[in-house]
């Protein structure tokens, strides 16, 4: 049963590491660009966020007409997580009254990115904790594989 061996569980955790690292990179970019008012596509920088999805489609979408089973039997435990897309936060930019600013509009307001540093810091803690959890999971699988090598010794 190779598809469910200990090695594939390392792969599942590694996908978690990749996803969380990308999320961390996006957060770093968001914080770095907290005051960026000019971008190549015009306008202020937009906060970027990663959209995660399960690699094998095990996610439950709720349909109002479907009776929900408390537990469902499955054939496969799943292969970890993937990043579906990097999307831009569609919320409105922060407006600040700075008439002397070169990017100010006619009323003197400057559109700053919709990045909230406090929110980014909280997301960063969440991403780094999730990263650590995946590391622990890899180490655990590694120890199991090592222990399995001692069978019959």
């Amino acid at each position, binding site marked *: 049963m190779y598809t469910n061996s200990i090695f594939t569980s390392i792969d599942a955790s590694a996908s978690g590491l990749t996803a969380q690292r990308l999320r961390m990179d996006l957060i770093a970019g968001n914080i770095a660009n907290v005051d960026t008012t000019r971008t190549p596509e015009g306008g202020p920088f937009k906060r970027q966020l990663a959209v995660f999805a399960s690699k094998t489609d095990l996610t439950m979408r709720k349909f109002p007409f479907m009776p929900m089973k408390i*537990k469902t039997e*499955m054939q496969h435990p799943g292969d*970890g997580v993937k990043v579906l897309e990097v999307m831009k936060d569609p919320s409105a930019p922060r407006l600040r009254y700075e008439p002397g600013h070169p990017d100010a509009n006619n009323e003197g307001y400057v559109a700053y990115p919709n990045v909230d540093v406090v929110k980014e810091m909280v997301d960063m803690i969440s991403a780094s904790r999730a990263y650590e959890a995946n590391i622990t*999971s890899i180490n*655990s699988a590694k120890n199991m594989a090592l222990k399995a090598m001692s069978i019959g010794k």
Partner: protein
Amino acid sequence: MLNQFFSSVQYIATRKALDAAALRQKTISNNIANVDTPHYKRSEVNFEDAFKQALEKNPRRLVGFKTDHQHFDINSHTDINSVQPTIWRQNDTFSRADDNNVDIDVEMAELAKNQLMFNALIEGLNRKMSEYKKVIKGQG
């Protein structure tokens, strides 16, 4: 003698439990990897209960008596060799606003438990094997 060991309940149970532990490891890893996935529901592996049921010599359950080969099985005795671990997805709990029900603390605890279980199984297997080794080598 060795055949006796390899067909013993202890050996089969250990082998199957190790398979179940590997599958459980994968399931927990997947749960942890999906800790931030919206709509994801955690899954878990069930093996020990099914195996225990198969091990019971005198099950305290109603067992259907068959008078025809076309009859359905009602709690008939399952062979321990045919017991397979099953994966269940838990759909009924809600812990967060994004509809994800992975509790990272529970998963980490399960991970530690599973690793201990795996190590204990291998330790037990090794002990039994070293007994046979002593017999083969003729050491007291």
